[in-house]
């Protein structure tokens, strides 16, 4: 039982990481009906930037927000340079472009930092605290806290600010929004920036657990896909819930299902994606109508 609770808790921690990346996917999906295959690689690049800042002597807690701001700017630049010129292209063309972007970013990171795995400093102590027999590591608690705060901020931004309102309006009803004076094109760029920053959180949180290298996010993005699909790819709330479910499921499957240790956990992610897409393609929180797909 104690082991079970521990597994659930650390599952929630990794789930928070998947949730951040899944939320980034959902933000872009909502803005333009597109799955951004480069989301994980963009997060990886941001994490390298954070790493560069930290190794130059910046403390983690300063480097973290600075990295998010840089990732935000980077996302906007990518949208302006790569995505905007092909905005109106068929969605499969856009998918291929984001895949190209993923490959390019991966290569660039390899070009600049090489492919040797590096240890990324964790901001949290590796100690555990004994809570009634359940050992809770500060790392898990810290990751849950950070991702929780970030997700809450995104929620507040989207639901309770004017910018968030215009962002949502521009995503769902670009024509009507334009007539209300919303700069739709810039809202899309803002969406990319926001997604990029939220995705960067997942990179910064996962890097201390894995090692930092250009292919670091390749497995994480699969879990994030699973989370986004499970929650319903249009639903920000669904992404968060989906992320937590995926995190806990993967952890428990790894521990209790015979033969599902190590890299086969990834197959569990694939199985979630395929089962959800076939049985309930709109996910847990999605609505039945499919727009612009």
């Amino acid at each position, binding site marked *: 039982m104690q082991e079970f609770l521990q597994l659930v808790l650390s599952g929630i921690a990794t789930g928070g990481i998947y949730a951040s990346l899944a939320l980034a996917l959902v933000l872009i999906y909502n803005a333009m009906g597109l799955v951004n295959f480069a989301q994980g690689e963009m997060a990886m690049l941001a994490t390298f930037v954070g790493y560069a800042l930290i190794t130059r002597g910046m403390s983690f807690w300063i480097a973290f927000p600075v990295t998010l701001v840089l990732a935000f700017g980077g996302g906007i630049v990518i949208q302006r340079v790569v995505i905007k010129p092909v905005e109106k292209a068929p969605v499969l063309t856009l998918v291929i472009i984001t895949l190209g972007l993923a490959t390019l970013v991966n290569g660039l990171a390899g070009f600049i930092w090489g492919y040797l795995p590096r240890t990324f400093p964790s901001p949290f102590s590796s100690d555990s605290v004994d809570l009634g027999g359940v050992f809770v590591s500060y790392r898990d608690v810290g990751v849950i806290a950070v991702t929780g705060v970030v997700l809450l901020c995104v929620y507040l931004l989207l639901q309770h600010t*004017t910018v968030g*309102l*215009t962002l*949502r*309006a521009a995503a*769902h*009803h670009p*024509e*009507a*929004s*334009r*007539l*209300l*004076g*919303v*700069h*739709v094109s810039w809202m899309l760029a803002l969406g990319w920036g926001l997604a990029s920053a939220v995705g960067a959180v997942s990179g910064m949180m996962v890097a201390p657990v894995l090692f930092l290298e250009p292919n670091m996010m390749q497995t994480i993005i699969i879990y994030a896909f699973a989370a986004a699909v499970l929650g319903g790819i249009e639903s920000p709330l669904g992404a968060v819930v989906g992320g937590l479910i995926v995190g806990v499921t993967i952890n428990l499957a790894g521990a209790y299902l015979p033969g599902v240790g190590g890299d086969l956990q990834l197959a569990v992610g694939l199985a979630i994606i395929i089962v959800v897409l076939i049985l309930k393609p709109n996910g847990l929180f999605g609505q039945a109508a499919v727009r612009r797909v």
Partner: protein
Amino acid sequence: MTALLELEEVHAGYGPTSVLHGVSLSVPEGGVVSLLGANGAGKTTTLRAITGGVRWTGDIRFAGRSLRRMPTEEIVRRGIAHVPEGRGICTELTVDENLKLGSHLRRDGPEVRKDYDRVFEYFPVLKERRRLSASTLSGGEQQMLAVARALLMRPRLMLLDEPSLGLAPMVVRSIFEIIRTINQTSNVAVLLVEQNARIALEMSSSAYVLEVGRVAVHGAGSELQDNESVRRSYLGY
């Protein structure tokens, strides 16, 4: 009196098909002008040209300034509220959020609050449903929401594209009543596209009848109403 909005020899179309073949019209400050005509005559396209929704040549001036090559967002920010065909309600958002989109550019807080009060006075049903998703509103209520949202933009000119479409006659009456009130109390000019020529002409100071992309007839509202042959051949009543 100087014209608030002026179209001069406007040609417009979609891709290779041109729809407008030189439309000229003007809307005076604070006036109500109807744009009538059969389906496909170019009424909606004219409105879309004004707010930059289609490419056009010729000239369109608003408050003395040309709107050439201006993006839609900028045109709207200059004081034109366009209630498009199909009303343009954001059905993913609540009623309140839709209204907020109308006023989101305004910085005059107290005035905005007054306008909200006014809007809720005109359309009490919107106040009751503030927190509901706009998708739950009926067609008439959505039209009210669209007009209310346009009003909250505090425009100098409102472009209304068939506000009566698909609505029950009673509802049409009350919406037109309110449009007239808005026009008179806030000095908002209105350019009204309507199929229902009778009700449109009643409240218009002047009217234009479009026929395949050209202005066929132009005159004061009452003049057109009284002219039997115009009524028969163009307005169908």
